[in-house]
């Protein structure tokens, strides 16, 4: 595969809640190369969410360092972290997290707005991203006029519109039925085949089976890191039917 795009070195995260110190992450190291498709798994409280937050530059490690595309993220100011999130990371959330009462197009435009992209280019790129997921005719619809699958596809379009280095998906199929879940996984697989690096949190082994690599967390440490031998093809599983 390609170069190393994500490199976490002995990343620890300690929360202090009053008197209590909680070690959410204990010296976790992980490398992800471009073009990889990683599922991060584990029970709740295993540290996987904390790790994702650090990968997503929403949180900073207590110790250890994190390189994204060769740049050390540790020690960056809030302002710069916001810029990194904007330019290099595409987020897909469990609850879709589209803005209410806002059209699909405007949702997709958001990262470009904060990236200070001029209006004309912004619209063009957003429409192109929507078209990529068959949502051209839904551009003017607001979140509550869209199905769950459509909402998640809008969210994916939003994550991709800035052409990020990695896509971070936090339980992207958590709120979807199994058929729609497979549909969404087929989209991720397609993106991955086209070269996108995807890191996804999930607690469902069936969903993890569609990825290339499974990393299991437990008690703030990586329990196992295995390559998926026979990756399921979501399109064959019925996801590419639409």
């Amino acid at each position, binding site marked *: 595969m390609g170069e190393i795009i994500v490199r976490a070195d002995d990343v620890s995260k300690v929360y202090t809640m009053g008197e209590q110190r909680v070690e959410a992450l204990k010296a976790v190291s992980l490398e992800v190369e471009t073009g990889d498709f990683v599922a991060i798994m584990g029970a709740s409280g295993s540290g996987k969410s904390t790790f994702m937050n650090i990968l997503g530059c929403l949180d900073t490690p207590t110790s250890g360092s994190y390189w994204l595309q060769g740049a050390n993220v540790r020690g960056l100011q809030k302002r710069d972290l916001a810029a990194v999130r904007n330019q290099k990371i595409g*987020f897909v959330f469990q609850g879709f997290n589209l803005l209410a009462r806002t059209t699909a197009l405007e949702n997709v435009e958001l990262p470009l707005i904060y990236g*200070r992209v001029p209006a004309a280019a912004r619209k063009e790129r957003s429409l192109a991203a929507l078209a990529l997921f068959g949502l051209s005719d839904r551009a003017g619809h607001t979140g509550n006029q869209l199905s769950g699958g459509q909402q998640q596809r809008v969210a994916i379009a939003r994550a991709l519109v800035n052409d990020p280095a990695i896509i971070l998906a936090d339980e992207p199929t958590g709120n979807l039925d199994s058929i729609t879940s497979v549909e969404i996984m087929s989209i991720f697989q397609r993106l991955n085949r086209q070269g996108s690096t995807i890191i996804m949190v999930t607690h469902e082994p069936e969903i993890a089976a569609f990825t290339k690599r499974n990393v299991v967390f437990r008690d703030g440490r990586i329990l196992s890191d295995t390559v998926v031998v026979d990756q399921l093809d979501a399109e064959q599983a019925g996801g590419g039917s639409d």
Partner: protein
Amino acid sequence: MIELLLSLKIAVRALRTNKMRSFLTMLGIIIGIAAVIAMVAIGSGASKIISEQIASIGSNILLVLPGSRTSGGIRLGHGSTPTLTYDDAKAISVECPAVALAAPIVRGGAPVVYGNMNWTTAVMGITPEYLAVRDWPVIEGRNLVQSDVDGATKNCLIGKTVADTLFGSEDPLGKIIRIKKLPFTVVGIMDRKGRSPQGSDQDDIVFVPLRTGQRKLFGSEYPNSVGSIMIQAKSEQDLDRAEEQVTALLNQRHRIGPSREADFTVRNLTELLDVAEQSSKAMSLLLGAVASISLIVGGIGIMNIMLVSVTERTREIGIRMAIGATERDILLQFLTEAVLLTLIGGIIGMLLGVGGAKLVSVIFDWPTLISVQAIAIAFCFSGAVGIFFGFYPARKAASLNPIEALRYE
């Protein structure tokens, strides 16, 4: 600039999604601004009337009135004794250095006839000084001059009301009118003066030369007496000195000593009106202050709603931050929203305030004065209220932790 436009767009949308709430939030500002503008307009309308009245009397004026007389143990009021004379007036203007002009007056009411029209009006016997003191020009024809007074001519000046009533569209100049059956030639028409501080029509008047008035119209047992003397001091600072000098001079001329009560009174007219003006200014200040309090209450309402709004939209803030909004972006967004609320409220309030002031002036026949300055200040103030009361909620939004904000249900 682009940032500002964008946050404006976001703010407009946020306000539109909660129309009723936005309106109710604005209501505080609307009422506040409307109240400030209407109150200031009403208050300054009142001050304007008073200062116009002061101007209509003339500036730096003292009035000398004849004193009272005791008759059968009853003290009669001012003017009951004709103690002041034309010579007093002449002496005052010559001997009192702080006095610019002294204008003796006799007055009375008389029927005035022209052709088949008649009208009962005030007739005043004056010297040329009077119109100078009152700052009251003749707009057509000529003024009365000293030779009219000395020669007791039968020339007269008429006020606008008299001119309109007696002559209608006819030109009064050179026409003969009869005052108490005596023929007078109209030599001039006075400029319109409007209402007096007491509300009477000052233009309903005929001026005749002082001596003519004394001898032919209001003949009394004291032919040289005058009803009052109006005095103009050289400047506002000279008013008090003028009062002292006039009092001293008249005391001497009338031989007033410690054992004898003065038979005249000197009144400072401007001072009285100044007091009235001061109190009306204090009144409008008070009205403005009360109205400003409602503006502050409105601002607190905005802060309250903005805080609720920030809490409600925690998740939205989290999404925006995850996608790359900086703290500044979020701060600007909420601040814009608050300022937009107050500015829209300010504009509506301004229209209501101006409308309200107009309504008051129509319904209650109360003059109102809407100053551009007051409007500009109110507008800026509403913006400032938005920034001041919007900053804390916006700051709160911007300092949210994105992880917690995203998790917020």
